[in-house]
């Protein structure tokens, strides 16, 4: 009886500590966003003179939003960003998961070589590739200024990392026994992959999807090199006029940030459920 009570009390204390710790950390993490939300409704003069005031001396204003939207041509940039992000993410997941499967399940030289090269490529500083890439694709092939080219490159750059993640997931989370059973039932490798393995990867797919989508959505350097025409601009390229070496219009930066963040936040909240579902329902014990 006494021991049980003691255990229950310990558990309660434990729980309280965890909650407190969580809340403290949460406040630290969210603090900059709070500042953004406070300041985005102020005029530039008020932001500069008193960044902590809840309402500026010139009162509450929504002005930063329409100005930011107009200057970045929000509608068009948004559609470009969304199209590029969705296509790139879907293709990356498709090809990288397939590649990871063949690499994990076969001990071939080609597989080892490919994985090795991919892992090594993850540490190539982008500056090394920047000029050679535009020289080849722009100077020789002349295919820059197409959304499809950017999608192609996004996929090319993100395949390594996605393959690496699927590699880990297939290795640890997909039992070989399941696949063997499918083979005995007459499935080809292709069918086995799509019917058995791919569905088991739900949680990793969700993880890769959110991570890659974020990367694509926010990428600045690569799109700025590939898309040099105004009508193709993505959100990060369109917002570059708000900041720079000589001046930063922090009010517009903040407004653009909130506008650009919302869709990806919603995507995350949607996928978060699948990350949990995938792990709890997919596993075969």
């Amino acid at each position, binding site marked *: 009886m006494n021991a049980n009570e003691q255990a229950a009390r310990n558990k309660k204390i434990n729980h309280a500590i965890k909650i407190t710790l969580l809340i403290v950390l*949460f406040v630290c993490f969210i603090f900059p966003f709070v500042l953004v939300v406070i300041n985005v409704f102020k005029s530039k003069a008020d932001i*500069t003179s008193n960044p902590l005031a809840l309402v500026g001396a010139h009162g509450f204003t929504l002005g930063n939003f329409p100005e930011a939207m107009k200057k970045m041509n929000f509608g068009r940039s948004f559609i470009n960003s969304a199209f590029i992000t969705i296509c790139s993410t879907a293709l990356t997941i498709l090809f990288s998961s397939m590649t990871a499967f063949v690499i994990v399940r076969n001990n071939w030289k*080609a597989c080892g070589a490919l994985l090795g090269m991919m892992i090594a490529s993850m540490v190539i500083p*982008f*500056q*090394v590739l920047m000029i050679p890439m535009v020289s080849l694709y722009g100077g020789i092939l002349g295919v820059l200024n197409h959304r499809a080219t950017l999608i192609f490159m996004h996929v090319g750059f993100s395949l390594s990392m996605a393959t690496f993640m699927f590699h880990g997931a297939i290795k*640890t989370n997909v039992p070989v026994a399941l696949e063997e059973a499918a083979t005995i039932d007459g499935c080809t490798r292709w069918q086995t992959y799509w019917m058995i393995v791919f569905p088991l990867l739900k949680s990793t797919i969700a993880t890769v999807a959110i991570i890659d989508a974020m990367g694509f959505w926010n990428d600045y350097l690569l799109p700025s090199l590939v898309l040099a025409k105004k009508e193709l601009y993505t959100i990060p390229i369109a917002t570059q006029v708000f900041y720079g070496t000589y001046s930063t219009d922090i009010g517009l930066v903040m407004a653009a940030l909130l506008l650009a963040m919302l869709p990806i936040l919603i995507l995350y909240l949607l996928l978060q459920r699948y990350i949990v579902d995938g792990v709890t329902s997919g596993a075969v014990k």
Partner: protein
Amino acid sequence: MKTNTMSYKCKQFLMFAGVTTAVFVAVVIVPFIYGIYLTLTSWDGVSKEKPFVGLANYVATFADGAYWQAMGRTFLYSVIAVVLVNVVAFVLAFLVTSGVKGQNFFRAGFFTPNLIGGIVLGYIWKFVFNRAFVALGTSLSIGPLSSSWLATTGGAMLCLIIVSVWQYAGYMMLIYVAGFMSVSEDVLEAARIDGCTNTQSIVYVSVPLMMSSFVQCLFLTVTRCFMVYDVNLSLTNGEPFNSSVMAAMHVYNQAFTYKNFGVGQAEALILFVVCAVVGVLQVYVGKKGEVSA
């Protein structure tokens, strides 16, 4: 069906990895090789001629003191940031998988920093350090807060580390969460029956089973920290007195601001080799310690 013939292997490989290989080679490998060639020229980035100079750029790289200082600084920053990011991420992952109420809400909160691009994120934090903290410090007269941390050599480094932890911890948390959840309840139950305390079951059961998560997270943080550029540019821009210029930023300046494209490219290549060696070594060591489920 024969599964060990060359043609079967080729077909399988092409079917699953053909597109990947082609795209990867076209986007990464080919430009990379061309990039290596450019390190052998004294091109300035804009002129039409690319005079071949052999290994002169590598000689210049070894003589570039500022580059090696930046490398040393990057190394120091990376070690501290990698440790902190992973410790914080692991703790976060543990807390949000321990069954407290609203854990999805917390997860989303910790992950939100990743939803912002690196450059914008740097400007926001610069605002926080230079304005908000200082305003807070002066109005509440908290000494250490009343002047900007970004103005001192050590402070700028500290700020970079804080922002890196803030930026990456949520991301790494996701990977650790997946790791925690892949450890099946049965195993933990068994451990509990065998008399493990909570801490013991984490250290002796969960952690070994999550080895692949650790490998992934460490690799990602190590390489990201080594190549940090965006945040470096927008948060400190190398200031004060060029004391926070990291390797990638030095490379960029060398190539474009100072117009020594060949030298910059050679320095970037050496940065790549260093990253690759550290990264691969770390994966290799990690893989040895992996336990399969």
